[in-house]
């Protein structure tokens, strides 16, 4: 059980770090969002299974930062509306 939790924590940490790298990839930031979401869910599960797991905590924190920063470059209310409007 502990090993499985540890595996999830490691995966969360790795995914959190990779998601941070995607901030610099412009249009591919959405891949960072997907990785950060998976990292976040795995990190939360690992932290729930073992509340004192530092690796899981780091994975959750890095995934949240990765998610937020990738979302900053990803989310815009106008782009698509403008696109659809111009196409219609």
């Amino acid at each position, binding site marked *: 059980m502990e090993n499985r939790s540890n595996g999830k924590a490691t995966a969360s940490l790795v995914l959190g770090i990779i998601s941070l790298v995607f901030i610099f990839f412009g249009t591919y930031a959405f891949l960072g969002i997907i990785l950060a*979401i998976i990292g976040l869910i795995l990190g939360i599960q690992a932290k729930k299974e073992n509340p004192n797991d530092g690796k899981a905590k780091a994975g959750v924190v890095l995934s949240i930062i990765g998610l937020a920063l990738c979302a900053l470059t990803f989310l815009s209310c106008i782009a698509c509306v403008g696109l*659809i409007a111009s196409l219609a």
Partner: protein
Amino acid sequence: MLPTITIFGKTIAMYGLMIVLGLFIGIGIAIARHKSNNFKKDDIIFASCYAGIGLVIGAKLLYILTTLPQIIKNWDVLVSDINNFYQLLTGGFVFYGGFIGAAIGFYIYCRQYNLNTIKMLDFFAPIIPIIHSFGRIGCFFAGCCYGINYEGLLHIIFEHSPVAPNGIPLFPIQLVESASNLSFGIILLFYAKKTERKPGKVIGLYVIYYAIMRFTFEFLRGDIIRGFFLNLSTSQWISFLLLPIGVWLFFDMKIKKKYSSI
């Protein structure tokens, strides 16, 4: 007004910035008041993450649904260039989709870790309009979700908006909705302070407020690419459906009986 800003040479959409800022402030408020309920700080943060994921997915899905006819009509153009498809993914979100998605996110988290979903929704109900008020300011900066033509007091004129009609006086619906949401969020924070409220009261009150407010404010919206059916917009139809759910949450005895012992 100000669709994008440049920070360290990187262009960032103000809409995205305001949403992320609102989420962080909202979660910060939730953490600050976590002792008022019996939820652990970790549960508040983790449930917020699940809800945040649901919010983005739900808001995007509903946007795609409302613009489906245009997407189908222009499918060839969309798939011909990866940038067009990327714009479809990144731009355009509908609040109601986000609200429903966030509620599903809370439900999944609470079910997974044996927490009371209604109590969790009650806890987060005052935070939702506060986050939403930031989102509406983001809309204002971007020029989307704009109001009807209006030349009266406090009208606004966009000059460099990529979406709103430039040079035409418009009703500042984004700012009005933002102020309305922020005020109601603060009222709900005080309302939720009373610890012996029955489960469903706070979230029920929020749903009632938002359904009525959104239904009314939709008549003051000038943007038309939101999907209409029988002269009512998608959001008005959803308001119509959500209002009885809000009333049921606020008054229903079954919820009170079922959860009052937990």
